[in-house]
């Protein structure tokens, strides 16, 4: 089997990238480990999806179904219940700036495994990484204490309730205030379980403000901000969680208290899934844990693109679709250019010549992409490390400001987009280095 593009992941990102590629006439196939399309969406049975993209409020399954229908109508092949074991580049010169690189046929060879179709190889000219993310777990944040049954990541609990039909516990404490945790606080409450508290170590919640209102406030669930989890207690099954307020950054153990419960849900952040990317030799950005990409969302491996939560963690699925649509379109550009192109048309390692690097400066957690094209209009995604009511996003080349945007309601849990118009960067030297910053602004 041979395709122009192989798309790893059938979630919102993978489907949107595939639609974008198919719309440009390129053959592609989508692979996913699960037995259904939509990635995490089918277990997100709450509403709130699609407001930006479709102008209406959909549930996760509804949102997924819309994309799935389009994928089916476009005749895009999908391999479900299938794991990508590896993706190899049999000849690394293909697709690179080597003279032979103009011929990208068979540039990548993927090994797929499934219980239905067995072990197979698929050849493709390009790859879109859209594997989504995984949940940070107890070990990652080093919560001490006992190791009883009853500790779940929020997404696993969501899967157990919404797909498998089992209630993981009846009296829960949720550690971390990520969106899935907040959604699960409401879901557990509606399923007859009692949510005793949400405990967040930071001074502010990490989930969306609307979820704090709709999932905690509406159900009278207390949110303990600036509280550390000291330990989980329970021999066989969880019996409680010991927490303490933070004073000057350290837990004040004299004021520690235990919240009795039988279940602990962890909602302490997501990490882009990049085991496959790393094995392919794709360099990662340590700030996002996703691939490091240029302005075309292409990784440092020519012909490999990344989008969605595998690239960086998004707040809304609508934005995942937007980014993946662009990734698909950039991949199409690349496929079209590499067909019969001359070696001189692309820069070294496949990265566009003349891209200007962007560094995360004051209050900026990261930027995606890591470099910008001087010639085009483009979108930069970023997140603030601190909350502020009003702020100013700024791109500077040394002392000179090349782009700025006023922001309001800046929260670490919400993404910030800077739409940089064509021409804004045109006057910069090729060796310029941009720095992105967000400065708080006083209100009048």
């Amino acid at each position, binding site marked *: 089997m041979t395709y122009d593009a192989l798309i790893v992941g059938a979630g919102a990102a993978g489907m949107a990238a595939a639609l974008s590629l198919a719309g440009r006439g390129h053959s592609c196939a989508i692979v996913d480990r699960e037995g259904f399309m939509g990635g995490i969406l089918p277990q997100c049975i709450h509403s709130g999806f699609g407001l930006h993209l479709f102008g209406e409020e959909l549930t996760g399954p509804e949102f997924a179904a819309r994309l799935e229908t389009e994928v089916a109508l476009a005749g895009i092949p999908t391999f479900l219940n299938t794991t990508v*074991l590896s993706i190899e580049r049999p000849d690394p010169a293909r697709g690179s700036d080597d003279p032979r690189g103009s011929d990208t046929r068979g540039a990548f060879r993927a090994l797929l*495994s499934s219980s239905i179709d067995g*072990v197979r190889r698929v050849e493709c000219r390009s790859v879109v990484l859209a594997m989504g993310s995984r*949940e940070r777990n107890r070990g990652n944040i080093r919560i001490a*204490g006992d190791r009883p049954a009853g500790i779940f990541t929020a997404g696993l609990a969501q899967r157990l*309730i919404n*797909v498998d039909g*089992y209630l993981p516990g009846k009296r829960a404490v949720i550690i971390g205030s990520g969106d899935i945790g907040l959604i699960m606080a409401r879901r557990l409450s509606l399923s007859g379980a009692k949510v005793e508290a949400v405990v967040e170590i930071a001074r502010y919640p990490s989930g969306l403000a609307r979820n704090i209102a709709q999932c905690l406030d509406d159900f009278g669930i207390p949110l303990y901000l600036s509280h550390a989890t000291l330990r989980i207690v329970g021999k066989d099954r969880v019996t409680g969680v010991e927490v303490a307020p933070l004073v000057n950054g350290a837990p004040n153990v004299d004021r520690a208290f235990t919240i009795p419960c039988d279940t602990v849900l962890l909602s302490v952040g997501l990490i882009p899934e990049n085991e496959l990317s790393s094995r392919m030799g794709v360099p990662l950005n340590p700030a996002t844990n996703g691939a490091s990409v240029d302005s075309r969302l292409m990784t440092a491996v020519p012909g490999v693109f990344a989008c969605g939560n595998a690239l960086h963690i998004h707040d809304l699925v609508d934005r995942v679709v937007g980014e993946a649509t662009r990734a698909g379109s950039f991949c199409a550009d690349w496929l079209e250019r590499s067909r019969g192109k001359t070696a001189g048309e692309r820069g070294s390692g496949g990265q566009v010549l003349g891209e200007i690097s962007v560094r995360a400066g004051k209050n900026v957690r990261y930027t995606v992409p890591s470099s910008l094209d001087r010639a085009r209009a483009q979108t930069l995604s970023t997140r603030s490390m601190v909350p502020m009511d009003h702020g100013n996003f700024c791109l500077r080349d040394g002392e000179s400001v090349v782009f700025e945007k006023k922001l309001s309601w800046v929260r670490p849990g919400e993404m910030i987009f800077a739409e940089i118009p064509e021409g804004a960067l045109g006057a910069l030297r090729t060796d310029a280095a941009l720095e992105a910053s967000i400065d708080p602004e006083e209100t009048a």
Partner: protein
Amino acid sequence: MISDNTPFDVAIVGAGVSGASIARRLSRYRLRIAILEREADVSFGVSKANSGIVHGGFHHASGFLKTRLEIEGAGMFDQLQRELGFPFRRCGILVAALHPDEMRAVEHLYSQGLANGAPGIELCSRERMLALEPKLSGETVGGLYAPSGGIVEPYRYVFSLIESAKKNGAVLETGFGVSTASRVSDARSGETVWKIDSSDGRSVRARWAINAAGLRADEVSRAFGAEDFEISPRKDEYFLLDKLAEGRPSRVVFPVPSSVSKGMLVIPTVEGTTLIGPTADPVPDKDDFSTTSRRLADIVASARGLVPSVSERDVITSFAGLRPALGEDFFIASSSVAPRLIQVAGIQSPGLTASPAVAEYVKDLLLRDGLELSENPSYDPIVRAPVQARTLSPEDLAELVAKDPRYGNVVCRCEGISEAEIVEAIAHGHATLDGVKFYTRAQMGRCQGGFCTHRIIGIIMRETGLSYDMITKRGGQSAVLEDEL
């Protein structure tokens, strides 16, 4: 089997590394053997959480029983691995001195090792140490190298020993917590035998009993009316680092030991992760497997001293194990109080290393005390190691999947564990989430079960017919799901 009127020849209390080794050793003879385990699965006590090291024979002074058994046991692992197929590798052990003052202690270990007969032991310069392990700290001034030292997956070792013993006729009873033991007369033979009762009402009769009950060897000894001693649990805390961690050395790295412990080590496990730890803190409670944030910080600091590239960012989980401390040496002897009872107590480090020799030693005690041992002609030492999809070439995997499609379904993405491997674990009796984890490694990787737990629950229910509320993390009251929607 348990309702059969004929008493067993030998009942072994405890299916940890000692009990399992003894059971397997004795299964070579024409004996009826019962293995009685308190937990829901074998290896769920002391043997589950430890450093997993086959030691180099230099840490203990000659004269101790444990020193002799350590050297003898370490030498027996190659053949055991050939027969049983558990993960084991002689990667070598280093003791790194980070200060010239520590070299005196290293020299002491070296001469101790020589006296013990530790194979191939070598006193090393700084340059030699850094050549043997380039990831060692630049502060290293010298050290010791024990090339015969190695690493083993302790639970997989125990699982394979039990499997071998069962294959040769031994009977395993799990969830069998010994409450009392008494001498009764066997109606058929007229012989006085042990009647061993479980707290849930089951009972087993046996002519001989072996107390290999680990943390509870003291309680079991009292239940048999034998010696009165006290096992003092000592807690070991560990961190496990991701397979991609930069801080993975190629050999086991020890610090220079203190008077109380061997110190905190950096261990490259056979399966590719890196283990750092342990601490060694006495605790009053035999059920206290909790980790403490303070000690975990100590572990990282200590590990970084030896291997600077060890990073907190790579931590995927932490856990604690308990050592059954009882004096300075192993206590392995025929009870001087109760008849026909062998005590195998206080088996802390190097108990894993010594285990094959402990089994040999116990066999000799039984023989001396009058148990007749005649070779079992149908004894089969070989246990087939489970097939692991992740280790196969694409061609071999394709062939296997064509025969059994369940090998093509990757259930645990982090460790690459197929559905067929999970089904096999369940078929071997490991039907709890932890049992599946220790047998297959599913849920042991970087997501720690976030993606595959629900799938494994489904497979256990399908394979065993258990309902959702019977699915436990590790048996007993550790139910995973509380209700159905």
